[in-house]
């Protein structure tokens, strides 16, 4: 057949038309789509039998009950446990993200020994035997040199069996330096101790209060036990309970409150005394309580009436005096008014003067140890271990002054003063800390004044982290002995923050350990064994589970089954017995801290005009700012007005920004006496002019690529401000300068 031009074109065009009209191209497109949608790298989750396991969340001190949904041996979802006394089915954003921590790339897979320089993140895997032997050798060496007291432990919690085992280890070894990380727990414990003579945790019967005045407490940011507070807030809404939020920034709590009173930061204590002034002047306080159960009232009220008139308080706080009078009257006229403090999530200690001023408001209303009020909740009493028999080395070590100075004449009532430690280390030569243990804490990230901290860190010859995760502290340690993470281990949770009943939760393993980790309780026991007597004989238990079994005795099985123990019918002591001060009364002016009332305000570091603005931190429920960093799910929920790519946005009032010539989203340099950072600016009408607000919980250098390098760590820009009376770190902000670039 001859192929001419005409037949060739007919063939091609006809063929194309024929193919187009046939189903072939459609079929091919469809197949292509299906094929591209079935690429084998899109995971197909394995099926399996569904089961549920209950345990206690340990990501914050909230003590919530969680239920883990499992498919086969995989944990697939965390939910709140229905009927749990603390959170009754609710769960917070961090608790929900727990499985990303369990299975995530931030886990420390096995004991790791540093090979490069500190912080270089170069590690060598070592076996547990090798690692523990190495630690034991270091410790034995220090003990041999009579330097046992130079071993210190920074712990995120106390009271539970694991921190108590650690404390016991240090005691038997010969060191008084068990130091808890700072939080409002410190200041509230001290308030209860000074004013009520109680060794107790603070509890708030918030569900039954009918008027709440919050001096900057982030009720909806994570203060107290977060889910409980969220639930209480909803109950308040249903019952028409009024909430007044006093803070310089329109936070979530302020936005949800019935009244937001912007205040000059750091003057909250003055406002509390201003309210007290009005209540005293108008004679609105509960005379029955004040008359019979308090001491020092006359002197205190005279001072308050003289010094804290609404006019003076208006000048200090910036709140209108008529507003002060109205607020004081509404507060006093409520049946069960409640005043609370502890800024934001309560991750900082705060000044004792401020806490006592706020607590005095509760005392004026007789709202202590009664329904809807503030309760002194006795600490958990489940641990009754035999006294440690100390040898000469241990006794000598225990008689040494604590590194942080807590309990000395100067800081008689303070139990833990971690912020003082870097300074003390830098002052000594050689370092007063020769070996540092870190347990459930991330001080390398959370401690302020980074220059001082880094200098001190470099002086500590040996740093051991027990972290399950590669956090900043672990990354800058010499050895990591990874604990099982909370979903893999047993541990008692000795309280739920701010809960008004004695409570113990139990964390139970819901999955088997995913990596070559070891329970820190067991690590401590094995270390004690390796050291031999007298340390060894302080630990008569085979392993940690044996210790738990022994500690809880016949209640162990029940605790395992129910998962928590709560004294639901707990009533705080009757007033005649509740106050254990020398006078057996509530002390308005405790003898030991006479000056606290004069010290209700603590000044921020830095001076004008070099630093014309004030930088304050703000907490967000979507940003974990404690020892755990944000898992990927949480960081995903952070708005683009807080974080844009890797840039952090600070909040500034439009007028302030205008005066600096900075507009929305523009870069700027933020400088404080402690540091400098490049930020971007977000204009926000909800912040007082003259302030700069920065979110906490960002600026991590460790963890994974989903978190590291995003934003700025607020702790890099601030330093501690020591409260003269208590020694606690009372810093609430720092003076700053913002300039355009």
């Amino acid at each position, binding site marked *: 057949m001859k192929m001419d031009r005409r037949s060739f074109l007919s063939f091609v065009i006809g063929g194309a038309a024929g193919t187009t009209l046939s189903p072939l191209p459609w079929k091919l497109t469809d197949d292509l789509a299906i094929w591209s949608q079935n690429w084998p790298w899109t995971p197909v989750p394995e099926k399996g039998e569904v089961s549920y396991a209950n345990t206690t969340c340990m990501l914050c001190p909230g003590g919530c009950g969680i239920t883990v949904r499992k498919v086969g041996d995989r944990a697939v*979802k965390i939910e709140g446990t229905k009927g749990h006394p603390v959170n009754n089915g609710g769960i917070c954003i961090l608790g929900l993200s727990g499985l990303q921590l369990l299975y995530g790339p931030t886990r420390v897979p096995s004991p790791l020994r540093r090979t490069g320089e500190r912080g270089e993140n170069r590690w060598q895997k070592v076996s547990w035997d090798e690692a523990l032997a190495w630690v034991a050798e270091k410790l034995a060496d220090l003990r041999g040199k009579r330097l046992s007291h130079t071993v210190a432990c920074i712990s995120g919690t106390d009271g539970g069996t694991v921190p108590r085992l650690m404390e016991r280890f240090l005691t038997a070894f010969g060191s008084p330096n068990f130091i808890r990380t700072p939080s409002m727990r410190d200041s509230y414990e001290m308030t209860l101790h000074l004013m009520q003579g109680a060794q107790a945790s603070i509890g708030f019967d918030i569900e039954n209060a009918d008027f709440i005045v919050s001096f900057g407490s982030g009720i909806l940011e994570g203060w107290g036990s977060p889910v409980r507070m969220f639930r209480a807030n909803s109950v308040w809404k249903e019952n028409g309970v009024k909430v007044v939020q006093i803070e310089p920034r329109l936070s979530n709590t302020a*936005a949800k409150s019935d009244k*937001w009173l912007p205040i000059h930061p750091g003057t909250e204590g003055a406002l509390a005394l201003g309210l007290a002034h009005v209540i005293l002047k108008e004679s609105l306080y509960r005379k029955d309580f004040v008359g019979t159960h308090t001491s020092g009232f006359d002197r205190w009220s005279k001072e308050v009436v003289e010094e804290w008139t609404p006019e003076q308080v208006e000048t200090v706080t910036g709140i209108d005096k008529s507003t002060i009078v109205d607020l004081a009257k509404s507060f006093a006229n409520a049946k069960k008014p409640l005043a609370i403090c502890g800024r934001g999530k309560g991750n900082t200690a705060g000044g004792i003067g401020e806490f006592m001023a706020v607590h005095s408001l509760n005392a004026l209303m007789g709202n202590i140890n009664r329904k809807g009020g503030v309760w002194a909740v006795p600490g958990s009493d489940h641990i009754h271990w035999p006294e440690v028999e100390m040898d000469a080395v241990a006794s000598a070590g225990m008689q040494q002054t604590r590194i942080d100075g807590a309990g000395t004449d100067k800081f008689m009532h303070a139990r833990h003063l971690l912020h003082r430690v870097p300074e003390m280390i830098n002052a000594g030569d050689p370092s007063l800390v020769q070996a540092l243990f870190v347990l459930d804490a991330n001080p390398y990230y959370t401690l302020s004044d980074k220059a001082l901290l880094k200098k001190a860190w470099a002086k500590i010859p040996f740093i051991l982290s027990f972290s399950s995760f590669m956090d900043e502290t672990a990354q800058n340690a010499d050895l990591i002995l990874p604990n099982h993470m909370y979903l893999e281990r047993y541990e008692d949770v000795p309280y739920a923050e701010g809960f008004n009943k004695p409570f113990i939760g139990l964390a139970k393993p819901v999955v088997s350990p995913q990596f070559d980790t070891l329970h820190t309780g067991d690590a401590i026991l094995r270390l004690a064994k390796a050291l031999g007597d007298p340390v060894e004989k302080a630990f008569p238990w085979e392993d940690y589970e044996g210790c738990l079994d022994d500690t809880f005795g016949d209640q162990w099985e029940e605790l395992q089954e129910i998962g928590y123990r709560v004294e639901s019918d707990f009533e705080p002591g009757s007033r005649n017995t509740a106050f254990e001060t020398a006078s057996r009364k509530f002390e308005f002016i405790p003898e030991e801290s006479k000056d606290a009332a004069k010290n209700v305000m603590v000044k921020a570091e830095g001076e004008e005009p070099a630093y014309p603005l004030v930088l304050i931190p703000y907490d967000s429920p979507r940003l974990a700012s404690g020892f755990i960093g944000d898992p990927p799910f949480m960081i995903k929920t952070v708005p683009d007005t807080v974080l844009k*790519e890797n840039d952090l946005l600070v909040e500034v009032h439009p007028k302030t920004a205008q005066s600096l010539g900075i507009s929305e989203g523009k870069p700027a340099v933020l400088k404080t006496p402690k540091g400098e950072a490049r930020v971007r600016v977000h204009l926000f009408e909800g912040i007082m002019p003259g302030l700069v607000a920065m979110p906490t919980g960002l600026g991590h250098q460790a963890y994974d690529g989903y978190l590291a390098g995003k934003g700025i760590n607020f702790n890099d820009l601030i330093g501690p401000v020591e409260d003269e009376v208590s020694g606690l770190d009372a810093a609430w902000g720092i003076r700053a300068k913002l300039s355009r670039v």
Partner: protein
Amino acid sequence: MKNEQAKKYGMVIDLDKCTGCGACMVACMAENNVPFKKDETNKLDSITWMRVFQLTNGKSFPETDICYIPRPCMHCEGEHGHSPCVSVCPATATDYSQQTGIVSQIYTRCFGCRYCMAACPYHARYFNWWDPVWPNGMEKYLNPNVSPRMRGVVEKCSFCFHRYQRAMEKAFLEGRRELEEEEYQTACTQACPAGAIVFGDLNNEKHKIHQIVNPDPAHRGRPKNPKAFRLLERLGTNPKVYYLSSREWVRRAGDNYLPHEGSGKGH
């Protein structure tokens, strides 16, 4: 389907109680295998079936006020199931169920034209620009009841339809044809620590949602409760997600108004 009255599952979110904490967003991501990237600050390509927006009253300090508003898929009914997205889908990859009132999304049918995204007035739909990648080991937490999506398809909130399926299977096994209210609840409803979300059958007078919203069948389910409103009511999308607020400015922010229009309610 003889014995079965048609359901109309819906949601009511109390904005007075919502604290903006974001737990609903994460509960949804965890339940529905929603992927995540290293940088999620470009919110246009950040997949969040449930997303909490922030509203502001636009006033200056200190009168300024903010309100958080969670936005799942509204599961619009439109008129007789003609929701905006369903009407435009050329692949029938999204459909309105007359049995449940749920707008489905069938990933294997979707070929990624994104007409539905253009049609959705609530920005409730998201496109997978990339294949989902979980960091090594994290696939372990994936939920087998929800298939992970691949690159090139659109996804959105399903009212946790797989939970409905599981609940129905269980009911059928037990010889029942009807579900109790608490047997089918979405992940966000269950998680909300403030108890701000109520989920249930709008057609069922015994369900809390019906009692709270009091939908008016004569006006396409517009709420009779004066505190309740729907987003962009005036578009006629007939959404099944309702909001409650005691604040006038919040209710007003739920729709677009010309300056001279007074009411915070739709017309």
